[in-house]
């Protein structure tokens, strides 16, 4: 899944006829001042300014300011841009129109195994969480579109009456159209509100998760995907993603600050079992990483360097199952080069390395790893006869 920030998410909704407040994403206070000169709404309505980054708890961090006039929004933008929050620097602010409203509703569309589920509730905002039973659902098989009647029935079930029921049904229909045409996996608007000026339903917020795999049929997806875990990607993570996008096979890397056990396993499935084993043994993961699909050795080398650069690590787990066709000798060659580079850069002091692997050219690969001992590495190498995650037990035994 690929998370999309609010700005481009709203853009997609607008494309499918959903009313959204006026908004603009800016990268500087100057840009906002200039936009203010040509956009009437910026002068006429109260504004909201939010840091436009993949950050959790923006309210708490003071990165959401409401009830501003244009000069207030410019000042808020100036204050937010360039602010350092953890590993990320705020580079964008989304400024949008404040829409005065009374009632708040909820609408979402999500992917299910069979197809799609449309969710509607006659309450919105934080009220939804505590009143989850008020959320009504319409399930659709894949390839099926909801009929107007069914949507109206759904709205009525959710407690909408009169003309609002029709409007809510119409809103849900547009949400579905956006979801379906844009290859979304999850769309949520919370709250949906009635605009006082014209009585239209309007999306005040947008949570948009798209299917990154469908990018090939969406040439207009001109935005970057955002990290999904409440912080932006670090520079090293972005660098590994860059490598990943260029190669056959894959390399993945996510940092987990504060850990002491670094992961460098092979395979999307095995890597999780290795992570589990670390946690089960009371270890603290320093990262999640994985390479698979017989990636070129230079890509594995880049990944290795990033793993070796993790601060405060004590063990590196070079785990892996019996590969189908990933060349163990070649990929280990990349890892060995990465280790050597890290060592010559003064890293890996006091770090123990644990290796377990099988597959094509396993003997040559494991022998090459074993030979690192002679170069002064604290390395422990095991073959397919050692059960998969036993190296974690050995590494973490007190």
């Amino acid at each position, binding site marked *: 899944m690929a998370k999309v920030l609010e700005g481009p998410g709203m853009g997609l909704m607008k494309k499918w006829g959903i009313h959204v407040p006026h908004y603009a994403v800016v990268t500087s206070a100057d840009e906002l001042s200039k936009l203010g000169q040509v956009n009437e709404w910026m002068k006429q309505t109260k504004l909201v300014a939010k840091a436009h980054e993949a950050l959790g708890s923006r309210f708490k961090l003071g990165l959401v300011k409401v009830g501003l006039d244009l000069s207030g929004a410019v000042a808020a933008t100036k204050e937010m841009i360039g602010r350092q929050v953890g590993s990320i620097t705020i580079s964008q602010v989304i400024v949008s129109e404040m829409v005065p409203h009374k009632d708040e509703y909820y609408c979402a569309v999500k*992917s299910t195994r069979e197809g799609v589920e449309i969710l509607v509730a006659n309450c919105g905002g934080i009220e939804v969480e505590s009143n989850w039973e008020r959320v009504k659902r319409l399930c659709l098989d894949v390839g099926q579109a909801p009929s107007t009647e069914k949507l109206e029935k759904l709205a009525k079930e959710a407690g909408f009456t009169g003309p609002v029921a029709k409007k809510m049904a119409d809103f849900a229909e547009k949400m579905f159209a956006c979801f379906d045409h844009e290859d979304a996996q999850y769309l949520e608007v919370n709250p949906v509100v009635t605009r006082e000026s014209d009585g239209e339903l309007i999306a005040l917020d947008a949570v948009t998760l798209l299917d990154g795999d469908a990018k090939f049929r969406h040439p207009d997806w001109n935005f970057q995907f955002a990290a999904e875990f409440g912080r932006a990607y670090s520079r090293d993570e972005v660098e590994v993603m860059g490598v990943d996008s260029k190669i056959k096979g894959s390399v993945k890397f*996510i940092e987990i600050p504060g850990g002491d056990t670094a992961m460098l396993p092979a395979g999307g499935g095995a890597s999780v079992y290795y*992570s589990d084993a670390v946690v089960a043994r009371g270890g603290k993961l320093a990262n999640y990483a994985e390479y698979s699909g017989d990636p070129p050795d230079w890509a594995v080398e880049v990944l290795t360097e990033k793993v070796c650069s993790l601060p405060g690590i004590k063990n590196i787990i070079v785990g892996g199952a019996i590969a189908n066709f990933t060349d163990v000798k070649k990929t280990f060659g990349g890892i060995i080069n990465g280790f050597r580079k890290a060592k010559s850069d003064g890293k890996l002091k006091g770090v123990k390395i644990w290796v377990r692997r099988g597959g094509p050219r396993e003997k040559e690969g494991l022998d090459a790893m074993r030979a690192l001992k002679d170069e002064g590495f604290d390395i422990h190498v095991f073959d*397919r006869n050692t059960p*998969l995650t036993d190296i974690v037990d050995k590494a973490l035994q007190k």
Partner: protein
Amino acid sequence: MSILANKDTHVVIQGGAAGVNAARRMAEFCYLIKRPLNVEAFVYPPDAGKTNEIPYGSGLIAIPIYKTIAEATKNHPTINTSLVYIGADRAMKGAMEALDDSHIKVVSMITEGVPEKDAKLLGAHARKLGKVFNGPSSIGIISAGACRLGVIGGAFDNLVLSKLYREGSFGVITKSGGLSNEIIWICSQFADGITTAIGIGGDAYPGTDYVSYLEMFEHDPQTKAVVIVGEMGGDLEERAAEWYGAKKRRIKLIGVVSGFCQESLPKGMKFGHAGAKEGMKGEGSARSKSEALKKSGALVPETFGALGPAIKDTYQGFLKSGLVKEIIEPVSLPRLPKTVEEAMKADEVVVAPLIRTTISDDRGDEPCYDGYPASELINKGYEIPHVIGLLWDKRLISKQEAEIIKRIMMLSADHGPCVSGAYATILAACAGIGLSQAVAAGLIMIGPRFGGAVTDAGRWFKYAVDNNMKVDEFLAYMKKHVGPVPGIGHRVKSLRNPDKRVKELVGYVKSLQIKTPCLDFALAVEQVTAVKKDNLILNVDGTMAAVLVDMGFPVDSLNGFFILSRTIGLIGHWVDQKRQDSRLIRLFDYLVNYAAPKRREVPPLK
């Protein structure tokens, strides 16, 4: 027995290179179990009408390539299974085509990165038709001793180590390609091996679920237990648990689920597989899946490491109850013939090389000239003459020598359009001939009368110097045994109209104050011959030859200096004619002396 794939499975592979690779792996397995190749056809429109050659043992089998599934199944009506290796953007269309063909009952998609909606549509379509759509992102399906679909099982050695040549008692279903091999291996080491192993793919919504396969395994008497390897995300494991717990089942279920680490990791973190992500509000967590499996009566080891012993216990139980008997392994198995490359890598074969080279090697990441990497030469300031030195004389020449060669090249790069070589290239260019052929036409003009005397001049000057000959003695020898002295004489230049190029070169070399025995000798010869006739001067060929011999270049390489430098000019002439869009040249009648017999009558044929 087995499920999904057996000895009656006949396959069409949709896709290019990756599909061919899979066919090779499948052929290796067929060879191991002594069955004919189960791949009947490929569908790959760009190569339709051709064949792909798949090695089988030490032979090759030609498998036809078709444009459409319909063509493939029409020509090979036994086909009942399709493997999809088409890129993600076209995979759905290809798989739909296969599902809609009445011959095909199973479609397994190996393609990764297929949009979720496409996969769901394919799954729904297959269910509607009562067919199986396995995948996407599936490593394949393998039935021990019967059939391999895709690359599951790994390399040949691993197939043997994992005893895939004969049936065992354990079914395997995994989301992970890498782990499928691990589980197959564990089943073969801790128990008697597998019946069928299926990779259902790591996507969020694969076309099938554990239940559909558990149902099939339940009906396969050979399968006594099934191992499922799950992960967090989705609800496939819970559904499997529900199925298992619903009533008494014949098969034993053993399951492991990964993703417990997520309890102590940042929320929303994505793992290797697209499907491996905890759902909203905690559903789909490893713990809930694991609990569900345990509650249903499945055997759920606490860790992945405990899976082996759990499988072993289960197998021992089967043995004790008499449900299975110990399998006696065959004494010998077919061995896959090695390719020459593999055999060489394993030091098992010596190949007599066909050619031998001593100057360059391009097997690394860049060419090495006489051992020196090209980029290093460039970055350390070496120039083209040094490359000539390395490739023609296998030595790193000095800066001074490089300067001499540079001057030789510059002086002989071109000499106008009228010389035979340039004229030939121009003529060819005007006839519309391509660059390399036109330049070659010019180069073949190089011979005893044009630029081709360098080698011979060098040879004889060297002969004279090596034998301490006097000039008179040399001229007499040449007259008697060789003929005119190569390197002496010019068609237009003479003593009164000296060749500036020669003067320049001689002047420079002399200014260096180095030993030049051949050049000195050549100049001494000129002293004598020019007196006899004033155009019998040392020409540029002779000068180059003498200087290069003095530098130690092999005599046989000397013409190369002229060929190389004049090629610069010849290319220039060809480009020049092209640029002008020159028309075809035809000689005018008046430039020809028609000395042939006058027109006469042809006599009758006798």
